[in-house]
């Protein structure tokens, strides 16, 4: 298992992500955005959280044209696994690897706290170790996490089992956090090899830090 974590100028979650996957037994490399190829034995590419290019223009907009992204698109088109967390999710929607867009939170606040998310679909490699309806305690930290999809796209996402996670309370009842349509916190592509979510599972790996629910999520990629 070789996890490749991308690093853009302004990325700040690459070491947390590295720690998380190493704790699960994977080999992890951090790759600079100016690289043009991925290692041959890459089994998962992670676009971690942070503020790539200072969120200039729009969150994730400038990173989508970084040199490494051509290799990521090629890797994904061949069925390779790609995971975008927070800013990484924003980059994936900007790139078009995932549908929809992430807007400014409805309340205009940067929201940073532990929040529960409910598993909507586990019929995919990422969430295969979780149970449908299960409420996971995972930190969120974002300003632009308000997932937007028009009605047509939303129906398509639901029909294709692409809605992975929704914001909820500790009992699993849907809860509005940032204005996302249908309280969506994470989605995947139709082929179920590209995943994106706003919450940070890599920050929920140690009981001492408040939650270990990130373990069973990220572990899905190691099975």
């Amino acid at each position, binding site marked *: 298992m070789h996890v490749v974590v991308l690093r853009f100028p302004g990325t700040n979650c690459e070491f947390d992500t590295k720690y998380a996957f190493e704790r699960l037994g994977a080999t992890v490399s951090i790759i600079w955005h100016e690289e043009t190829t991925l290692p041959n034995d890459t089994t998962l590419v992670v676009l971690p959280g942070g503020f790539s290019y200072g969120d200039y223009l729009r969150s994730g907009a400038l990173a989508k044209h970084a040199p490494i992204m051509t290799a990521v698109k090629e890797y994904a088109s061949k069925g390779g696994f790609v995971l975008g967390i927070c800013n990484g999710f924003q980059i994936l929607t900007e790139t078009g690897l995932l549908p929809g867009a992430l*807007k*400014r*939170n*409805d309340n*205009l606040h940067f929201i940073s706290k532990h929040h529960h998310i409910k598993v909507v679909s586990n019929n995919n490699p990422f969430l295969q170790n979780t149970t449908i309806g299960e409420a996971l305690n995972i930190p969120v930290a974002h300003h632009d996490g308000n997932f937007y999809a*028009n009605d047509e796209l939303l129906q398509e996402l639901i029909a294709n089992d692409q809605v992975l996670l929704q914001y909820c309370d500790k009992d699993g009842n849907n809860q509005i956090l940032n204005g996302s349509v249908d309280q969506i916190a994470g989605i995947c592509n139709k082929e179920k090899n590209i995943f994106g979510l706003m919450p940070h599972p890599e920050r929920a790996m140690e009981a001492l830090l408040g939650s270990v629910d990130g373990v069973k999520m990220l572990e899905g990629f190691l099975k």
Partner: protein
Amino acid sequence: MKAIVNIGLKTGVLDSQGKATHHTLDTLGFKDVVADVRIGKQIILQLNTSDENEAREQVAKMCEDLLANTVIEDYEITLEA
């Protein structure tokens, strides 16, 4: 030639900043004056070309590729000599 690009959220996409600003204008006494507030951004490009068609074509391409997110935003290009 100068290109002025105005980018804003599409009609139907909730503009939270516009809404919050509208609310504050209401409290400032403009309630009867202001019907709606939309907030966008303006990007001004100084172009090397003086060919209007070429400029419009190139700037539209920039908008589609980078300047606007056409999933949620519309753009409008104005050219000045």
